């Protein structure tokens, strides 16, 4: 019987001839991302296992990304203990502040490869699926066992095939596609399933766009979201190893969807749910006070370039603060070299260190009571970015930039 991409990757990583939904197997962990939120728990649990050494330390990235740089003495002490642990255990994948990024982003900057089992101690690990890796989130107990054994248990999920046709037009972006997808199913239809995305529309998307879609798919409660790898991924990685991975012709999928990218327009997720999706043109005009451009969803060079396209020669509205958080130092450096950051700064934006700031739960950039924000991040439940009396609209980089200039939720088509 044929296998889906998910089943093939899991079978290979488990050393089995085949894998079917419902089986629970022990798989080799190819890449492991541990961030500052869970690192203390992971390392404490690892020590409690009495393991001799960390298995495959070269497969592990340790990323300070939630509180960067630390803003309390306690936070600084946590970072120090993380550094000490990594040094003591030969974990060279510790990324010091200044050479760092959001964990999910740096995993995709030449580390994770197509066809790998790539896990991270955070719910947005499905991002790695943009590169055709099986990326999913794990907890600190799993990460500790992975460090001690090189393996974790995983239940083989059902796969759902998604075919993209056509291409994005006008001001529509991958983020708008991902917002559209939030309502593909009702209830917990996607819970614990893998999306496998292919089709001519998918193969025409940049890696950055694929990472955005895989990232936002996490909000659908999927286990993972894989894009079929191809020459675009090979070009990005610098070699084609693993890029010919394909599902079998007779693979069995639990469901199939087709999305015509041409039909996608700029969308927003309105307060207070990622499923409250409306076209921007229907809700434009609501005054805002803050715009966040960044995060693992839309903090890449392509997103900054999109924002700069609209911000060039214009200024942020007097009532608005535009907070820009590039997803990694590499991105920030490249955007600076290209003049993109200058355009953003001259428009009147503030730039924060690459981190999860602005997305909500941690770091600066909070909203006060009665404030409204347009954000390129992933979650807009009540109180996510501060006051429970604040409102968050999730959007693309284009829509965020347009809104920052207008002073209200605005259709980017007005500026492009």
């Amino acid at each position: 019987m044929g296998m889906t991409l998910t089943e093939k990757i899991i079978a290979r990583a488990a050393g089995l001839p085949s894998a079917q939904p419902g089986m629970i197997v022990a798989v080799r962990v190819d890449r492991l991302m541990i961030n500052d939120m869970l690192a203390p728990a992971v390392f404490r649990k690892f020590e409690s296992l009495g393991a001799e050494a960390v298995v495959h330390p070269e497969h592990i990235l340790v990323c300070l990304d939630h509180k960067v740089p630390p803003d309390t003495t306690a936070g600084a002490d946590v970072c120090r203990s993380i550094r000490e642990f990594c040094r003591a255990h030969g974990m060279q994948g510790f990324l010091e502040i200044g050479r760092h990024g959001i964990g999910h982003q740096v995993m995709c900057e030449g580390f994770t490869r197509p066809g790998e089992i790539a896990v991270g101690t955070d719910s947005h690990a499905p991002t790695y699926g943009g590169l055709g890796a099986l990326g999913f989130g794990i907890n600190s107990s799993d990460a500790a066992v992975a460090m001690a054994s090189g393996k974790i248990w995983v239940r083989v999920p059902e796969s759902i095939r998604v075919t993209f046709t056509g291409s994005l037009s006008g001001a529509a972006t991958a983020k708008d596609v991902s917002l559209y997808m939030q309502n593909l199913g009702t209830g917990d239809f996607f819970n614990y399933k893998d999306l496998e995305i292919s089709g001519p529309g998918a193969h025409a998307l940049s890696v950055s766009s694929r990472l955005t879609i895989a990232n936002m798919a996490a909000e659908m409660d999927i286990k993972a979201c894989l894009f079929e790898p191809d020459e675009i991924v090979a070009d990005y990685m610098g070699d084609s190893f693993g890029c010919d991975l394909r599902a079998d012709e007779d693979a069995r999928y639990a469901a199939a969807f087709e999305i015509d990218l041409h039909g996608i327009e700029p969308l927003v997720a309105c307060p207070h749910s990622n499923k409250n999706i409306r076209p921007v043109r229907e809700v434009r005009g609501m005054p805002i006070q803050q715009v966040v451009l960044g995060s693992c969803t839309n903090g890449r060079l392509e997103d900054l370039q999109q924002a700069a396209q609209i911000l060039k020669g214009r200024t942020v509205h007097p009532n608005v603060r535009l907070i820009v958080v590039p997803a990694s130092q590499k991105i920030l450096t490249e955007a600076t070299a290209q003049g993109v950051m200058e355009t953003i700064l001259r428009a009147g934006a503030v730039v924060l260190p690459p981190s999860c700031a602005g997305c909500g739960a941690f770091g600066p950039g909070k909203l006060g009571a009665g404030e409204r924000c347009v954000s390129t991040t992933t979650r807009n439940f009540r109180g996510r970015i501060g006051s429970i009396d604040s409102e968050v609209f999730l959007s693309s980089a284009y829509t965020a930039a347009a809104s920052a200039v207008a002073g209200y939720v605005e259709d980017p088509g007005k500026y492009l």
Partner: protein
Amino acid sequence: MRNVIEAPIFAVGDEVSSLQIIPQARWQEERLGDWVFETLLPDAAGTAGFFRRLNRLILVAGENFGCGGKSNDFAVLALKDAGVELVIAESFNRIFYRLAIDLGLIVVTCPGISAFVQKEEVLRYACETNLITRASDGACIQAEPLSELALNILSEGGLLEYYKARKDVPESLFISK
């Protein structure tokens, strides 16, 4: 892991998030169990031990219990610290489900459980039969069986305990639901 758990339940509704189970502001507390449902139950706000004093070993929940995407241990540890041994839900958020198994909290999926129970009810869960019985009238509802993997991990008390005892990662090659 006990084969039979019989106790009064506490019921919550659909879409109860990890942050409603334990708010972020309480993550550093000594007794996490003191603050379970602080933002969910009107009488719990600012009241240490409110839920724990109700002494319910069994929690019944609706759809997507433990949603919100938090990958840390706090919600599961808080429930355990509050004395909860078993959560029966219409469905679980997958991140929470994995946390629960790995940390030794028994999680049983039972579509229909929300309608099956009243607010204050004694239920009996039998692991071998997957039957949940109402003490008041003996009515039964069938829960989904725990996977062999879940049983193996829970019988050791959690993933770390399993690994320490067996020196390996568990797996179960049966095609379970």
